[in-house]
């Protein structure tokens, strides 16, 4: 049976959730694992909530349905927490990684991690069409929290798949990796 | 001696399936004489789908792709690109009726014109859906009888050559089977222009559809020009010029009355005198616009 390490990405259209999932999958593949990155596109436009998913395993995976609960849930935009209850998306004992300076609410049966991805992106000048590209720092944080992927594989994935501002993106991933902490 | 100076070779063989006196076949005979054997033709649903003869025989001595009604300009686009890619340059000609051009085929034609494929697109305009038995098309003249406009067409003929000129294609021209030399000249010119779509709009008399004796095909075609109903012209890289007899028709007194053209055709037999007068006014109005265009082009030429 397909047994996989699953990630749920929650962001807004334009923030790069799908790209982050793709990069995490590439990093997993670089590590010799099998991985899927599954986007769920609504028909909505920029700014609407967007989901993406990863399934990572040592074996070939066939399942292509949406991930219901992830081992890690990545939240690119903390304003979305008002719309969705995280318990819906995270496995018991799993982790959430939130792009936020702090979390005021009590946690459920999962670990919570925070990082200020906006500050990292803005500090590096990573913006597209006016929006801070928060996906790279969050990607670094998710990879670290997952415990599955090494920094080197992740950086290699960014080098392979990202064409513009590669150095800045790698730096953003690194800063995300190093700055993520429990919150 | 017409048979000596005119291209001899026939690319439409004897024993085709056109009606007696078919203007379209006459036109296509000249077109192929002008273009020669290195020519592919794409034909959508139209009279010529039948005229070609029944499978496995064909009256056409050039390769022909028959294609669905709306598809001819697109099929020619793919064909000409393929021939270029395969290093086999040739004329690619669309031969379509007015239904397949001004109505159902207009979108594909517009696309092909905008993309600028090296195609010669010819619309033989018999001014109604003749293949299905004389139903009104977007090219049917005002007041003409068809089986779907039994008391006369209430709308006006769509001016597709102008629409094509507005696409900034390198060449637009009108032709008429009474003037074969003009056809040869214009088709050879179209063939020599390598880039872009060349659009030719052809006057195509139809004895059964227009309700006239088949022996009158050339006479009616000639009268269409002489009365000014059909204007012979070309638009080369945006520059409009009258050609042939039409050059002499800017003055109204040089034009025969349209009644001479109308009265030979059963499709106009129901017209009352005031309707004939109205059509005459419309033709005169058309020529006033042409005069303006000619004057504007002349002024522009001087200012350059």
């Amino acid at each position, binding site marked *: 049976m397909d047994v996989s390490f699953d990630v749920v990405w929650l962001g807004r259209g334009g923030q790069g959730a799908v790209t982050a999932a793709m990069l995490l999958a590439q990093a997993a593949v670089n590590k010799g694992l099998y991985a899927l990155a599954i986007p769920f596109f609504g028909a909505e436009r920029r700014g609407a909530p967007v989901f993406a998913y990863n399934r990572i395993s040592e074996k070939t995976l066939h399942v292509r349905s949406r991930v219901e609960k992830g081992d890690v849930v990545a939240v690119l935009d903390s304003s979305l927490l008002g719309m969705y209850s995280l318990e819906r998306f995270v496995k018991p004992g799993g982790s959430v990684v939130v792009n936020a300076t702090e979390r005021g609410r009590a946690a459920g049966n999962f670990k919570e991690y925070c990082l200020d991805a906006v500050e990292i992106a803005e500090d590096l000048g990573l913006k597209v069409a006016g929006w801070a590209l928060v996906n790279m720092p969050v990607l670094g944080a998710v990879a670290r929290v997952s415990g599955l992927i090494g920094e080197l594989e992740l950086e290699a994935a960014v080098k392979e798949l990202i064409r513009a501002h590669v150095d800045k993106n790698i730096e953003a991933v690194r800063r995300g990796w190093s700055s993520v902490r429990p919150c | 001696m*017409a048979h000596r100076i005119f291209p001899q070779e026939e690319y439409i*063989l004897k024993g085709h399936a*056109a009606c007696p006196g078919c203007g379209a076949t006459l036109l296509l005979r000249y077109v192929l004489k002008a273009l020669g054997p290195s020519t592919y033709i794409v034909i959508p649903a139209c009279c010529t789908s039948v005229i070609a003869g029944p499978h496995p025989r064909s009256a056409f001595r050039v390769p022909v792709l028959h294609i669905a009604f709306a598809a001819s300009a697109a099929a020619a686009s793919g064909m000409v690109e393929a021939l270029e890619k395969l290093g086999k340059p040739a004329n690619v000609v669309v031969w379509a009726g007015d239904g397949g051009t001004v109505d159902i085929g207009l979108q594909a034609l517009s696309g092909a014109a905008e993309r600028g494929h090296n195609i010669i697109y010819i619309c033989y305009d018999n001014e109604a859906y003749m293949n299905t038995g004389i139903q009104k098309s977007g090219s049917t003249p005002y007041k003409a009888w068809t089986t779907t406009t039994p008391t006369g067409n209430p709308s006006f003929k769509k001016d597709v050559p102008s629409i094509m000129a507005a696409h900034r294609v390198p060449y637009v021209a009108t032709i008429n089977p009474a003037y074969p030399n003009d056809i040869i000249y214009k088709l050879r010119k179209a063939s020599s222009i390598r880039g872009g779509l060349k659009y030719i709009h052809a006057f195509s008399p139809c004895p059964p559809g227009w309700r006239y004796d088949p022996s009158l095909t050339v*006479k009616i075609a000639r009268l269409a020009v002489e009365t000014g109903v059909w204007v012979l012209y070309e638009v080369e890289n945006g520059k409009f010029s009258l050609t042939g007899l039409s050059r002499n028709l800017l003055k109204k007194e040089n034009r025969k009355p349209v009644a001479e053209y109308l009265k030979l055709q059963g499709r106009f037999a129901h017209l009352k005198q005031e309707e004939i007068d109205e059509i005459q006014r419309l033709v005169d109005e058309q020529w006033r616009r042409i005069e303006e265009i000619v004057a504007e082009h002349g002024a522009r030429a001087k200012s350059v």
Partner: protein
Amino acid sequence: MSGRVEVLLSRPVVGAVPAGTWRTERPVVDQSRCTKCGICWLYCPDGVIQITDQGAVVDYAYCKGCGICAAECPVKAIKMVREV
């Protein structure tokens, strides 16, 4: 090409349809008046007229009898005659 796909192609042939049988009138050329100007050849939609040393000759196997040749002949050398 596979002969099997060949079945799709229609090949050019004189007489794809026996058009001559459609005729109700036939053009008859008065060779004594024919000037061999070639106008009838030029305007024939069926391509059935040849200009020979004797004058215009009509191929009745494929002539549909439309009468354009008779109408356009500048010296009225062609008459349309009813088929019996």
